[in-house]
């Protein structure tokens, strides 16, 4: 390599020009004075940490990992990646039982689902919430998502034969939420894709994408999941299948966090993994398929773009699909983090910050007064439903109910 050939440094954090726009856009900075902000925590802090790991600041845990800093950075600095990588490298504190519980979506789901009615009843109780708040520091305002007695995987296996009849096929990375909590979203996806003439099949044993493990310091577990998922995805790719998803965060994690944070090579599968709304939009746009919608469908829909979807740059596909439905009055909500950030907002110590971050969004929803909110992210959904009282539907579910 020629000396100093690439005028930009090979060390990404050195490309920071200190313009501080990341800190100006960070949702945490205005609500939590203990958080040093993305520039300080990221590229600035990195130089000190390289000098001595002693300079690692525990306050980095306040980062939501929403990636808004990276979206706005004009220098292409991977600010949030630097922060998360520093947490992985330097934070020696062990995850608490609570953090393991919150992060173990797969494990908890498998455990809870057979007893879904009982578990759902229990977690909804005020007394249970008070106990969780006192013992595990899970904020009492939060309600755990309900578990579904029948998982999505089982359902799709039962319908595998009819799905196989479609000439065009996709594989579906459904994620924990669809499997354990809300199989209806998976069923809605199958309905919409079938209407496009596409059959849906399961991957050969997907696991939780691991996003909650990453943010709760369970890097080793997350890496194991990542390696497993990449190999499973590779099998689908080898069969020539596109893999669609409905969770923006799972998608983002597999595409970007695996190689950047977990150092798991996903080059062979990255491009094959797409959000279903993008897949559908492109199918319609190319003229390869059409959808027929009900004529009596009417809804005033406020759409919230999840942070990770903004980072992917794919919010547009969900938005445009919703606009295609006749009878939809579409309102795009301002870009604003809802504040939940996965398991972050469930933690008692983050509750106030979490709600303060989302407040402008909640206020706007109330001002707009839609029939319901549309959003591609399950944790945004919990936050918005709890904080605004409005129902949140996934764009795929909206498409499904509007189909003729």
């Amino acid at each position: 390599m020629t000396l100093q050939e690439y005028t930009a440094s090979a060390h990404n954090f050195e490309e920071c020009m200190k313009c501080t726009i990341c800190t100006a856009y960070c949702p945490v900075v205005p609500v939590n004075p203990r958080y040093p902000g993305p520039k300080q925590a990221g590229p600035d802090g990195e130089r000190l940490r390289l000098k001595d790991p002693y300079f690692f600041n525990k306050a980095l845990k306040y980062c939501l990992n929403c990636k808004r800093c990276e979206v706005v950075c004009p220098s292409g600095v991977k600010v949030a990646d630097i922060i998360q990588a520093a947490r992985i490298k330097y934070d020696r504190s062990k995850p608490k039982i609570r953090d393991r519980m919150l992060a173990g979506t797969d494990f908890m789901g498998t455990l809870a689902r057979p007893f879904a009615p009982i578990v759902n009843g229990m977690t909804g109780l005020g007394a249970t919430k008070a106990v969780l708040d006192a013992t595990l520091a899970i904020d009492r305002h939060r309600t755990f998502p309900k578990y579904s007695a029948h998982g999505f995987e089982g359902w799709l296996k039962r319908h595998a034969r009819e799905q196989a009849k479609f000439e065009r096929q996709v594989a579906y990375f459904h994620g924990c939420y669809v499997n354990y909590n809300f199989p209806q979203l998976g069923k809605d996806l199958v309905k919409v894709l079938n209407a496009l003439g596409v059959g849906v099949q399961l991957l050969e044993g997907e696991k939780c994408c691991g996003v909650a493990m990453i943010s709760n310091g369970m890097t080793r577990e997350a890496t194991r999941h990542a390696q497993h998922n990449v190999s499973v995805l590779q099998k689908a790719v080898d069969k020539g299948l596109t893999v669609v998803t409905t969770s923006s965060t799972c998608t983002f994690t597999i595409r970007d966090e695996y190689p950047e944070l977990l150092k798991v090579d996903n080059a062979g599968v990255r491009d094959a993994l797409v959000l279903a709304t993008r897949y559908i939009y492109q199918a319609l746009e190319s003229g390869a398929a059409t959808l027929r919608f009900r004529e009596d469908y009417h809804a005033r829909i406020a759409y919230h773009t999840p942070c990770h979807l903004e980072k992917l740059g794919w919010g547009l596909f969900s938005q445009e699909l919703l606009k295609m439905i006749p009878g939809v009055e579409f309102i795009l909500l301002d870009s604003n983090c809802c504040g939940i950030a996965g398991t972050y907002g469930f933690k008692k110590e983050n509750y106030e910050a979490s709600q303060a971050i989302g407040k402008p969004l909640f206020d706007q929803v109330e001002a707009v007064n839609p029939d319901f909110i549309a959003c591609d992210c399950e944790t945004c959904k919990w936050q918005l439903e709890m904080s605004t009282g409005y129902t949140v539907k996934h764009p795929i579910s909206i498409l499904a109910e509007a189909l003729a």
Partner: protein
Amino acid sequence: MKRNDYDVIIVGGGITGAGTARDCAMRGLKVLLVERHDIATGATGRNHGLLHSGARYAVTDQESANECIRENMILRRIASHCVDETDGLFITLPEDDLNYQAKFVESCLAAGISAEILDPKEALRMEPSVNPDLIGAVKVPDGSVDPFRLCAANMLDAKLHGAQVLLYTEVTEFIKEGDMVKGIRTFNHQTHQSAEYYAAITVNAAGIWGHHVAEMAGVPIGMYPAKGALLIFAHRVNDVVINRCRKPANADILVPGDTVCVIGTTSTKIPFEECDNVRVTPDEVNLLIEEGAKLAPALASTRILRAYAGVRPLVSADNDPTGRNISRGIVCLDHETRDGVKGFISITGGKLMTYRLMAEMATDLVCRKLHVDKACETATLPLPGSERKSFKEVAEQIWENPTTAQKATAGRLGTGAARIKDTSPLGQSLICECEEVSVGEIDAAIQRLDVSNLVDLRRRTRVGMGTCQGELCGCRAAGLLARAHGCTERARADLKDFMTERWKGMYPIGWGDALREAEYTQWVYKHVLGV
């Protein structure tokens, strides 16, 4: 004694002058130190900041090597807050002669320097950034030392022991009575006033400028200014000093210092007229990058912060008028015995590493002349800030759960960090974001360390030494100085000087990220701040 009478006047506010002032003051002398600029503006602040083990000189100069290792061990004790005990490697690359290694190790051991041959793989584990093609490595007790901090701490301790320090005060003339130097006439560049100061002994500790100082006193010293250029990289690529195991040559030392690392140096003889304004040439920059990348290949793609150069005060041996036989050793001249000029001595040559020994030698001579019989204690008594070994202990003791900035403060000031009491949100807010310097730390420096402008402030706090090179901190620090001095206009002019000085160092390496940042900074200053 009259107000302007002293036992000893020291000319020069570099590390030698500061160390000598401290030593003299600790032996009970009444001391005045005059410096025409600020502390550490010459070679003191313009070198690698390498805490030599002496290994570099072991083969060629056993005496210097032995001085280095002894002073190395002393500085670890007395200046712990200025020293980073990193250790060093002497690596052999395929193009070097591996036979040199045996001779090198033997010479190190003879000089009292521990030198351990490492397997190249082990060396790579110890320092992952080192050139993986290395065929040999020797571990030695090198380290890094912050010369600004070291100089400021010596100056502070001299003052705590009663010395008076006059900065921006230039010697214009010696007051002589026959063959006797009785004192100095000075001009203060800030107040524009002249003054006279008297002392039994005047010590010339002016580095390369000592050549002219001696001339002014009527004695010749054959000095040879040798420019050395260096590059600063934007982060610590290496945690261990990396040297080449061969005869000392250009650009063969890479030193991790604080948040950066420094490659150097070159060696070019320059005329005396250039000593006040040395510039780094494109050829020097190329050579430094090229040779540096052989030590640590990552340097080829690491952002460069700035380039700078210093001038070594080399002295030709007295018996060699041609100047060919140049010593890098310590030169302590008693001009009474050498030239018949009484009351005047010069302490020069030497290195940053051996400043304390130089100071001891000069002070011993002063004491002999003044018939003062008190032993030197500078090798045992710690400098202010170094009363405790570990800055981490200091930080944890002062603050419960210290912030990154508080940890950085403890790293810079050692136990002196306890003086920064301003724990208000304003006091804790950052002036320099790259190096994490708080308002409280700046205010403390202004009050305690003779700061008259932003460049002075930089030398004492690292403000403006980080990646942004003053982009964010310059204007904020100017605000604090304006408050302290009660003059906005002065701070405005000062800010301009400060930024010009920052740009001077960025100019030779003006490409890539450094250029982008410089452009952005210019935009901020010109169009946003209207400076």
